[in-house]
């Protein structure tokens, strides 16, 4: 098996240049590559285009890179919960492209799967359709959407092996599997990195072919946005 292990986030991200297009996994703050984001923050590279479902919060996730103005453009489906984001958007410092969430997921999937365009019903008759080709199939109108690809994809998994096979946990899977397939270079950070042969091949979510670099992350904070508790305890 091919060994793709690198020491840490610094080594994994060392050749990401200014102006790179990055895919960053996660939904809200769930399943985000915390170590890679911290390494990019530390590197200080700028002019980044970030493709990610959300833009983090003011002091965590992609929000950290917005604060330092390292991001030129965000491609997302939902960008609430972030005051600095709002300020930069309104002042024109930050470019934003909003995409329906299912279209975003499919554009990334298509990018990884070698499908340059596809038709979806989402967004027909809305601002999203402006300037895009539509076609009628079996009496219903669909919108043509292009694939998305990235220079670097940064994904987070629960477990991985040194050849890049990945297993996700809970709803931290979200955009990570598709993004892993759509990066020219895909960097995976995992909570537990094991030797080849230790993961059950039946349970692999992302086959190692999609992953170029892998490391075991440290100090996962896994911040919760909405801590909701059942009242059954109080009763």
């Amino acid at each position, binding site marked *: 098996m091919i060994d793709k292990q690198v020491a840490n986030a610094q080594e994994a991200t060392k050749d990401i240049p200014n102006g790179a297009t990055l895919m960053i996994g996660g*939904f*809200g*703050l*769930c*399943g985000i590559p915390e170590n890679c984001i911290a390494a990019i923050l530390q590197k200080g590279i700028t002019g980044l285009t970030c493709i990610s*479902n959300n833009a983090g919060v003011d002091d965590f996730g992609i929000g950290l890179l917005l604060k330092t103005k390292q991001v030129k453009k965000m491609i*997302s*489906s*939902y*960008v*609430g919960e972030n005051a600095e984001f*709002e300020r930069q*958007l*309104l002042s024109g410092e930050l470019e934003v492209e*909003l995409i*329906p*969430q*299912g*279209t*975003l*997921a*499919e554009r*990334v*999937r298509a990018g990884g799967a070698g499908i340059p365009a596809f038709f*979806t*019903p*989402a*967004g*027909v*008759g*809305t*601002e*999203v359709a402006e300037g895009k080709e539509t076609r009628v199939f079996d009496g219903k109108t669909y919108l043509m959407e292009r694939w998305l690809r990235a220079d670097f994809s940064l994904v987070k998994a*629960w477990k991985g092996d040194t050849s890049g096979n990945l297993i*996700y*946990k*809970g*709803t*931290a*899977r*979200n*955009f*990570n*599997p*598709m993004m892993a397939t759509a990066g020219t270079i895909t960097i995976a950070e995992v909570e537990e990195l094991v030797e080849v042969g230790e993961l059950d091949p039946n349970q692999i*979510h992302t086959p190692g072919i999609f992953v170029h670099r892998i490391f075991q992350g440290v100090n996962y904070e*896994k*911040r*919760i*946005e*909405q*801590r*909701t*508790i*059942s009242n*059954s*305890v109080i009763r």
Partner: protein
Amino acid sequence: MLDKIGIAKRIAQEVRNGMYINLGIGIPTLVANYIPTSMNVVLQSENGLLGIGPFPTEGKVDPDLINAGKQTITMMPGSALFSSADSFGMIRGGKVNLTILGAMEVSENGDIANWKVPGKMVKGMGGAMDLVASAQNIIVAMQHCSKDGASKLLKKCSLPITGLNCVKKIVSDLAVLDVLPTGGFKLVERAPGISVEQIKNATEGKLIIEGEILEMKLA
């Protein structure tokens, strides 16, 4: 007039045994509390879960398990986890039987506007455009009028559209209305204490009233 809980309770009456259901953020999320426990339904969370359970107890909070509103949740026995691409595959593929979501405006031909107010901060459409474009059945939970009394059930939406010809039913604070395939809001039920006249005055779009309109029954 119905409060948020009343709207949620009335929408829960539309749920049928065996349904797969996607609940939007806000009032739609509350609907889950009023689905009879005798009914077997599965709640879909578009971030990758079928089988949303109740909020966790303090000791069971798992940051790797959230719903689309980013709230910590649990999973029901028999749940399944999947990617966002698979999630929207099942949504676009028409596998989700019922979608319940909020709206700022609905037009008499079933167009919905719920993602953007020009001039205000735009947070994005999230999964709403995908859901409304493909759902088998869409029920909207909304206030009948804005705070200054302007109708939100219109001839034509004034806000940017989320999807065309998709809303099938509306449960507002004043009434239950079916959106007819041929156009128009057909009045089905009145909210407690609300007259047909009040609903007429609050509805700008074409309102269709046939026969006696009964007051809704809430448990």
